[in-house]
């Protein structure tokens, strides 16, 4: 399967942050969750994909083309939804199409009107009058009306209520239905990914901690719980991150290291949230 997005050794240095040799790839027709805590480098990576900021090293390919040399061609097939709406808030919903449609050769007015109707977005409403969920849907309507084959979303669910989040996830699943379109979805609300993601890339302090299939990620780690006396020096070394509990401790370790522990230690599969938390704790250690 060809890659919709391929990032190799991407490097960007700021005075207080470094995106360090980030590499991952998203196969066409899939949804990848890009997970990390705030400030981990998610938005920086997305801005680099759109060439909004200059990179210090590495390579990005979108649908097989280099994002610098073929920037204009790529952006015809690339769409974005950010956590904050980037249209002028005094515009009416109907004016958004007038403002941006001229830039896209494959803009489909009928499709845009269809999305507005199905999302219940009134054309005469001002953007400033829309709820956060409706703003998100407007950005999605624009993003999906010009034949984009890769949709990139940066924290689209933050600030949305559970119903709006659920609707958004349904829209994304529907979008990739034809198998030719892909979604790259940055979030720190990992429960969204449990439902829709095929692949997960975990980023922590500018480093990629894991990239691959979601199911393999969950199989790759185990959560262990036990009493204080169960926390041997050997186990402590193996733990990626740990917390104290009233009963003793809870921590995460590679699934391969979860064999041969004391019988009193319970072993459970992790959630993506737990993996994120313990990676962060491990980093702090």
């Amino acid at each position: 399967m060809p890659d919709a997005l391929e990032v190799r050794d991407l490097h960007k240095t700021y005075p207080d942050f470094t995106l360090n040799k980030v590499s991952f790839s998203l196969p066409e027709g899939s949804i990848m969750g890009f997970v990390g805590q705030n400030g981990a480098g998610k938005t920086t990576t997305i801005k680099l994909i759109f060439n909004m900021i200059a990179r210090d090293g590495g390579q990005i390919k979108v649908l097989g083309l280099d994002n610098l040399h073929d920037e204009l061609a790529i952006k015809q097939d690339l769409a974005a939804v950010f956590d904050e709406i980037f249209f002028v808030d005094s515009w009416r919903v109907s004016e958004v199409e007038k403002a941006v449609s001229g830039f896209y050769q494959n803009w489909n007015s009928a499709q845009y009107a269809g999305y507005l109707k199905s999302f219940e977005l009134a054309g005469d409403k001002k953007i400033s009058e829309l709820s956060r969920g409706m703003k998100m849907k407007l950005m999605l309507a624009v993003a999906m009306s010009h034949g984009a084959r890769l949709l990139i979303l940066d924290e689209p669910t933050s600030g949305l209520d559970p119903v709006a989040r659920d609707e958004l996830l349904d829209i994304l699943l529907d979008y990739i239905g034809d198998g030719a379109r892909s979604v790259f979805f940055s979030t720190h609300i990992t429960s969204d990914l449990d439902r829709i993601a095929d692949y997960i890339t975990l980023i922590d302090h500018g480093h990629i901690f894991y990239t691959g299939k979601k199911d393999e990620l969950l199989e790759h780690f185990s959560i262990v719980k036990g009493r204080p006396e169960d926390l041997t020096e050997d186990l402590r070394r193996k733990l990626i991150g740990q917390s104290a509990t009233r009963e003793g401790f809870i921590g995460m370790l590679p699934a391969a290291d979860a064999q041969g522990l004391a019988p009193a230690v319970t072993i459970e599969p992790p959630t993506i949230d737990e993996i994120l938390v313990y990676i962060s704790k491990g980093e702090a250690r």
Partner: protein
Amino acid sequence: MNTGTTSTGRILNSLKLDFFAAKAGLRLPMIVIMVLVMAGAGAKQPYLALALVLLFSVILGGTVFSTLEKNHADVMYGVLPLKKIEIIIGRYLYALIISVVALIVGSVFALAISRIFTVKMDNLTFLAVLSVAFAYYCFAVAVAYPLYFRFGFTKAYIFTMVPTYFLGVVGVILMGRHNFTSNLNSVIQFFTAHQYLMPIFGVAGGLVLLVISVAVANAVVARAR
């Protein structure tokens, strides 16, 4: 995979987008312009109305940066299939169109005031006001736009007036020199004899400033990235 529209097409689209973005912010300045015209009419001074409209249009040239900044619209320009230089050229064309509209609106109101109050307008003064105001407008835009592109409207706005104050100080120093009046007389005599050259100097000088400023803005944006 598409190859995108032509560069000219993209610049024009960017220009159109600028006007769409600035539309809401243009209402208040339009009201201010009407007030300035009224002030010129009240004083029965068509040139005053013309000069005030043209000078105030400098503020109109900055409204697009202010509106876009408030709406995080730099992200929108980053997502659209547009080169950075095309955004920059589109923005300077926006400024140029604002100035041309201001020239026309200001001239129409000046002529109307002249007719209504039977105030005579001579060609030389009319062309002088137009040319100097246009050149000043271009100078102000040429200084302000690279700063807006680099630092954003909010941070840069205060500094965009510094060169104008500098020009004022230079003007005062020049006027203090004894040969200033005779030099000024020679200039006036030259342009009285060659009136057609005045708008050429004003327009050409202004456009040269804008072209230099486009290059500076492009370099500044590239460096900031």
